[in-house]
Structure formats: C-alpha cells, structure tokens
C-alpha cells in the first residue's frame, strides 16, 4: 500500500512550519565571542602602530660598535660556511673502484682531493692472492687528482688512469666523473 502524495506533502510542510526553540543563552554567548575577536584585533592594531611610530633611539658608540661586531662576526661565519665544498656526500655521486697490483705491499691507501689528501681515510683491501688491492668509493662529478700511497711512504700513480701534471715531484693520476 502507498500513501497519497498530498498526505505526505502536508505532513512535511507541517513539520517545517513548526516553531524552533532557540537556546536562550545563545545571544549572550555570541556577543562574548565577538568582544573577544575585537580585543584580538585591537592588540594587532596597537602592535602595528607601535612598529610604525617613529622615535628617537639613544645608543652609545660602544653599543653601536658591539652591534657592528655582531654583524661582522655573522658575515665571517657565513663566509666560512660558503667556502665549504658544495657537494655533499651521498648526493650526485658515482661509485668508482680503484685497483692496484702491489704484491710486496703491506698496506695501500688511495689518497686524493676526494678525501682531503688524508692517507688514513681510504685504506685499500687485498682482494685476492697476487697482491691485488681494491677499494670502492662514491665520487662527486668533476676531475679528481689522486695517487696510491704504498706502505705509508711510496707514492704511485694509477697505471690504468691518465697522469696528472706533477707539481710536487711525485706522480698523481686523474679520474673524471661525468657532470
């Protein structure tokens, strides 16, 4: 069984026309909230006015010198940061394997501009019998100078890489990483 459309419509209209009972405290609560917002705006406006108001500032020469010193120190600090290498380890690098055959060596390390020419940073390891030494390291793009340091005192160029111009009387090699 279905009701007639008119009956349904009449009941809906009756429901919609019924008076709605409002919370008697609503007006008061709204006004309290409006007052709060107004106070917030007042604070902002006063702050803005304080910032814009011109005033005379008394400062001793010594305090001014201190401020200049702080700025100079900041400039020096930023300058020293800018002088650091731009390429960070782990970004835009290519893994390069270095190999040297040195049967009589007790220790071999690869030393170059990728490890600040520090002989202790990148030691090579013997990979098999026959005196083959190897190490794999990530390098940033660019043209890098390096050499092998055998037994802590003997510098050797990489026989499988182009030679670098010699500035210090010992051989160096070149590896180029694309970029």
């Amino acid at each position, binding site marked *: 069984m279905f009701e007639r459309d008119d009956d349904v419509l009449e009941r809906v209209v009756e429901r919609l026309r019924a008076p709605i009972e409002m919370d008697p405290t609503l007006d008061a609560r709204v006004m309290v909230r409006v007052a709060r917002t107004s106070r917030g705006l007042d604070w902002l406006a006063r702050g803005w006015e304080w910032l814009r108001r011109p005033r005379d500032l008394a400062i001793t020469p010594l305090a001014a010198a201190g401020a200049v010193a702080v700025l100079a120190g900041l400039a020096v600090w930023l300058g020293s940061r800018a002088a650091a290498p731009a390429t960070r380890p782990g970004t835009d690098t290519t893994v390069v394997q270095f190999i040297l055959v040195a049967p009589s060596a007790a220790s071999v390390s690869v030393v170059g501009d990728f490890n600040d020419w520090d002989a202790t940073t990148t030691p090579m390891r013997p990979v098999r019998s026959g005196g083959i030494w190897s190490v794999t390291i990530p390098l940033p793009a660019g043209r890098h100078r390096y050499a092998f340091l055998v037994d802590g005192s003997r510098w050797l160029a990489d026989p499988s890489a182009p030679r670098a111009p010699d*500035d*210090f009387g010992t051989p160096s090699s070149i590896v180029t990483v694309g970029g």
Partner: protein
Amino acid sequence: MRPWHWLIVLWLSAALSPRAVAAQDPRLQRRLDSATVAALDAVIDSARAVGLPAEPLVQRALEGAAKRAAPARIVAAVRLLADELGIARTALGPASAPAELVAAASALRAGVRPTDLTRLRRRRGVGLTVSLAAVTDLVTSGVPPDSAAAAVLALAALARDDQIVDFRRAVERDIALGAPPAAAAAIRVNAALRDVTPGPSRRP
C-alpha cells in the same frame, strides 16, 4: 666603562682582525706551519675575492702537504693554479661551475689555448667537464693540443659525454697499439662523427 663594555671591545677586535676576516681553513692549519698558511691565505683570499673557487686551491695545498713538499713549492703550485683558474674563468665565462674551471685549468696546463676553451663553451653550452677532461687526457696521451681540441670541438655539438669518453678511450687504445697520436685522433673522430651525426644516409 662597565665590564661588559670591555668584553664587547675585546670581541670586536678579535672579530675584525685581519686573520679572522681571512677565514682560514682549519685543514690547512692542521697540516702546515703558520707562515705557509698565511702565504696560502693571501693567495686563496685573492682568488675568492674575484669569484674563483677556493676549494681546488685548498686541495692543491693539501696534496703538497701530504706529499711533504717544501712550503715554497706548495705556495707556488697554489698560486699557479689560481692563475690558471682565472684564465679558465675568463675563457669559459663567469657562470662556469667549479668543476669546469678545474678541468679547464688542467687543459690549459696541458697546452690547450684559451680560445679553444671559449669555442668549446660556445659549441657545447653547459656541462663541459667531461669534454675538457677528454681534451687534456688526449694531450697527455701524446695527441698535439691543437689536434685534441679540434677533435673534441668536432664532437662537442652532437656527442653525449659517454660518447666523448668512448672516443678518448679508442684513441688511447690505438696509441697503445702503436698508432701515431694525431692520426689516431683524426681517424677516430671521423668514425665517432659518423656514429653521432643524424641523417637519412645512416643505416640503423
């Protein structure tokens, strides 16, 4: 004068002293004597003041320190590199990347002319490091500087970096097998040009 005023004066004098403004590199201070560091700082600061990268200069000094070179020799090597970086920057343009300048400085040391560096920049645009390294390595292998520069210039507009590296390796292989360096470069550059040149006559 109050006590904290004296502190400010002391800090001010320390912060503005010439040594502090020079921003000495601690890596150099750890491995070289103070007189050598001061001489190097003068060179490095001058380079930095004209916009040249300082890091390659620091690395050259560290190389000298690692190899126990005499201080005068280290300073001379760093000064020479600074001069070469300056010439390289003039040839390649002020927007050149540090890696490009280092590669160009090596090319200059090998005997490549600054005008060839400028032509390479014009022909290839940005990302010159591998091309410059190829020129230098070819010269190191025995190819005359003009021939090496001409070969890489011929490839510069069309070849990728890996194709230029392949070309350089092929020339070095031929030279190792006994080919005259200039002839090896000329033959290999023609072959490489056939590989990289697009055209209807090429077969897949």
